[in-house]
């Protein structure tokens, strides 16, 4: 399964949920897969997709909130896993697209081929934490986390697939903010 295929599957499970997307490949590729009002494309501030998602989930516990993180971002902000596990937001789904590299900067290796991030999340206290490696397993797990109580962590192992010729996010940062805020009505 490539990263792009994984994002395409994730998109089919979303309606109008607020979704916070990690910087780099994940924001750019998800924008190309499906540009949604509720997608917060975090173009900078590497490492903070998880804390932005946690803040949103805590402020609006009635809204299912999804983080689409990456292995580089999770490794940079491992402490935020503790904050999420301690706060226990039932409405939070934390996905991690794990390609084992910093793909948008030229595929330099990360540490996630050695460090099992789903076990790190579990050890912190996420009540649900799984690793999936195939499209079918991803579909089944997405069904579980979108229907169930969180916080849930889903490590999605993928092969790098980013085409750097594909476009960057075309919305301005303020447009991204306003579109994201509009899904709260």
């Amino acid at each position, binding site marked *: 399964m490539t990263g792009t295929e994984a994002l395409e599957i994730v998109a089919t499970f979303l309606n109008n949920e*607020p979704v*916070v997307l990690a910087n780099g490949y994940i924001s750019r590729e998800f924008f190309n897969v499906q540009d949604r009002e509720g997608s*917060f494309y*975090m*173009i*900078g*501030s*590497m*490492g*903070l*997709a*998880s*804390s*932005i*998602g*946690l*803040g*949103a*989930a*805590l*402020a*609006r516990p009635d*809204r299912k*909130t999804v983080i689409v993180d990456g292995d580089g971002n999770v490794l940079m*902000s491992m*402490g*935020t896993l*503790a*904050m999420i596990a*301690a*706060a226990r937001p039932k409405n939070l789904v934390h996905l991690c697209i794990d390609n084992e590299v910093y793909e948008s900067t030229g595929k330099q290796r990360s540490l996630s081929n050695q460090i099992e991030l789903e076990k790190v999340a579990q050890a912190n206290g996420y009540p649900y934490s799984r690793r999936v490696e195939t499209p079918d397993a991803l579909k089944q797990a997405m069904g579980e986390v979108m229907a169930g109580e969180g916080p849930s962590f889903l490590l999605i192992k993928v092969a790098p697939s980013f085409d750097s010729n594909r476009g960057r996010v075309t919305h301005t*940062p*303020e447009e*991204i*903010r306003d579109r*994201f*805020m509009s899904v*709260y009505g």
Partner: protein
Amino acid sequence: MLNSKSFADRLIAEKFDFFTGVPCSLLSGLISDLESRPGVNYIPAVREDAAVGLCAGAYMAGSLPVLLMQNSGLGYSLNAFTSLNLIYNIPVLVVMSWRGFGGKDAPEHIIMGDINEPLLETSGMPHAVLEPGDEAGAEAAFQQALDTIRNKKIPFTLLVKKGLYNEGHH
């Protein structure tokens, strides 16, 4: 506004409803006061930049956040402020203790104590200083903070000197 209870009362009266941060002894009274209030949830953050992210998410979901930190956290937070808040126009009230003021403090605080104001200025982040005994100055600073948050929609930092919000910890 010059003690923890009156400042917390004022924050809540102005509809601030989301509190997080990394502790400093100079803010210990304020954190204790917030934690003791029913209906107020202070969320301990593990790093100041994570607290910046937490506040940004909370703001976009409809809350009005306050971030408490020591000035040492400004270094960790600078990329978060410049590549998140200042480009998306996401405001937050930052209550930042000023360790190392006037060069009189433990060695690890001296350099940041000297440069925290120039760092904020060069980053385009408005700020004001709260001094013990200056109620009128604190009120003017707070009004400037409210105006910046509501209208310019960028972070505003209140730099807090020793002797305001560290009741019970000296």
